[in-house]
């Protein structure tokens, strides 16, 4: 019981810290740039990270369950390429979009089957499909760029909800965050995800259908990645096979910055949503102050490392006071847990 309340308190602290960072960033942003909180800038700020933020939501569930999906950026690219190819073939978007989503689900299922049925490590499987899905995208569309999509589609990508500075894709993010937040934190399913991530074998022996659970999570991840690819297509008003390259890095960064443990078993949707906001604000401030992409890349990398080092140091200090050597053992057992999963 004691450790339970301790853990809740620890998590609360992490999210409070993120919230404080957000407040600080808003203060800094308004101080350095007069346009920061204007209705013209806020939509830019949001859409710049919308695809990665959407992909981060199912990724949160997958990482909490003890796995990882590196193939999301390529699945987004494949969905984008599919829209392009179907558009050339004269298929209307109303039919092409469901096709892209279904292909996303199938791609996720393929990842899931290799991980659960064949018992392969998800890190390598999704590294393989990262190359495979991108290759398929390039194979079907080549280096062509396809444009000329329907007006309602590009309006969805560019426009905001009338009367608000909220871009349309943000609605999808909010809805998905609420649904997945409820599932993860309020249902039997969510508790099964945590149990699986903490101890795969123990979860299986206590009746969790681990394979089916992970299969569903990978399918969800693939489908949502395809959705992100569709949003990317709408936002750029063009379909290209190489779209979304390198996004997985940012997706995983958001999830880990949100306080999710890379070895599974710990993390919240709220933390990940806050981390996405931190990244959106940080990127926007750096852009507004013309610090450009160079420093942004360094800042994101530092943020990611610091977000892990700080809790580690705090943990070691605390356990060093109570029982010497406790910190080191927990790291070792975390590594062993990953292998079992």
């Amino acid at each position: 019981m004691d450790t339970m309340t301790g853990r809740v308190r620890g998590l609360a602290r992490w999210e409070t810290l993120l919230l404080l960072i957000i407040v600080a960033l808003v203060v800094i942003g308004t101080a350095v740039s007069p346009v920061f909180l204007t209705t013209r800038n806020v939509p830019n700020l949001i859409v710049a990270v919308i695809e990665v933020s959407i992909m981060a939501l199912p990724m949160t569930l997958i990482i909490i369950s003890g796995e990882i999906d590196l193939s999301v950026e390529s699945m987004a690219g494949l969905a984008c390429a599919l829209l392009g190819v179907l558009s050339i073939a004269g298929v209307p978007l109303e039919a092409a979009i469901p096709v892209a989503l279904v292909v996303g689900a199938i791609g996720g299922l393929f990842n899931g089957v290799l991980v659960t049925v064949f018992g392969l490590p998800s890190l390598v499987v999704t590294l393989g499909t990262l190359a495979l899905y991108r290759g398929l995208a390039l194979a079907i569309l080549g280096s062509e760029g396809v444009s000329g999509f329907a007006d309602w589609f590009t309006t969805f990508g560019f426009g905001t909800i009338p009367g608000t500075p909220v871009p349309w894709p943000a609605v999808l993010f909010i809805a998905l965050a609420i649904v997945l937040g409820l599932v993860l934190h309020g249902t039997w399913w969510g508790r099964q995800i945590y149990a699986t991530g903490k101890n795969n074998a123990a979860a299986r022996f206590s009746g969790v259908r681990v394979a089916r659970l992970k299969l569903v999570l990978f399918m969800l991840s693939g489908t949502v990645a395809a959705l992100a690819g569709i949003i990317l297509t709408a936002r750029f008003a063009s379909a290209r096979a190489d779209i979304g390259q390198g996004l997985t890095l940012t997706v995983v960064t958001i999830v880990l910055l949100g306080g999710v443990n890379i070895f599974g078993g710990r993390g919240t949707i709220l933390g990940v949503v806050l981390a996405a906001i931190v990244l959106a604000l940080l990127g926007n401030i750096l852009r507004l102050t013309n610090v450009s992409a160079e420093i942004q890349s360094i800042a994101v990398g530092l943020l990611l490392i610091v977000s892990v080092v700080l809790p580690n140091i705090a943990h070691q200090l605390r356990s060093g006071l109570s029982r010497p050597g406790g910190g080191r053992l927990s790291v070792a057992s975390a590594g062993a847990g990953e292998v079992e999963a």
Partner: protein
Amino acid sequence: MTTNVAAGVAPPTGGAVARPLRFLARQRELSLVIVMVLLGAFVALQAPQFLSRANLVQVSVLASIIGIAAVGQAIVVLTRNVDLSVEAIIGLVAFAVADLLAGRTLSEPAAIGVGLGLGLVLGIGNGILVSVGKVPAIVATLGTLSIYRGLLLVLAGGKQVTLTDLPEGYTSISRADIAGVPVFVVLAVVIVVIAAILLRQTRFGRQVYAVGSNPEAAAVIGIRAGLVTFAAFAACGLLAGVAGILWGMEFGTVNASSATGVTLSVIAAVVVGGVNIFGGSGTVVGAGLGALFLAFIQNALILLRLSQFWLQAIYGIVILVAVLLDAAFLRRLQRSTSRRRA
């Protein structure tokens, strides 16, 4: 390759055919060589220029660059870690050395020395984060991938060093040979042999395998896992630095986005070479052969006039097949040991 897949996943029948196939599944190095010879024969029949000297040099030089980086990656993976930042180290070293030479700031040996030192320092950075900071390797090197790439962006900006900016002596090394064998290939072979001896014959090597197969047991018998892991990352950084220098020599044109995506090829080479992604088993010879295999496939696609767009997809399939074979072999091994015990 397809026969191998079938053999890998099929249940063990124990017949006269299954036994040699099982042997091959265990001997990844040998099976890679056999697959390459068979595929090579096929490609040579379809496109005779495959066996031309110019083509073989091109394939082996590319394989050498990736192979050297793969040796470093293999050592890290053997300790049950991973280094995702290698492409940023390769790019950063390639650019830094080329930039120093283009400005005629340093002589060639001095610039190469700086490049090696830079690779080592970047590897040490990873090592400190993982060993001292206790940051999981995948997180730490994901972070340093961003940071090192960012440093390269700062250093390079929109600049580009091209072939004509570089001293003639520097870029011609990639075309030099020793007794007909390209210098790069000789260097790669020497590095693979040194690393193989280091891993097989020395205490450090045995500690690498021990830490990778069971970190807790390694700690119990007094191996300082942190130190071993640190050394592995430092070595990986140094070898990525070597690969970066060769990259600059071979391609001549270096800019802020050089070597983007190379981490995937390097890890693919390691996995295809039979190194277990969870550490403890595999060889650097396998990693080197894995790099050769990938370069060979890329070349075959070009010679057979297949679309380069399929390359990525084929890399993906090769990774999946390799890891499926690993898993099938492991399961069989477990089954046979449990049978023996029963």
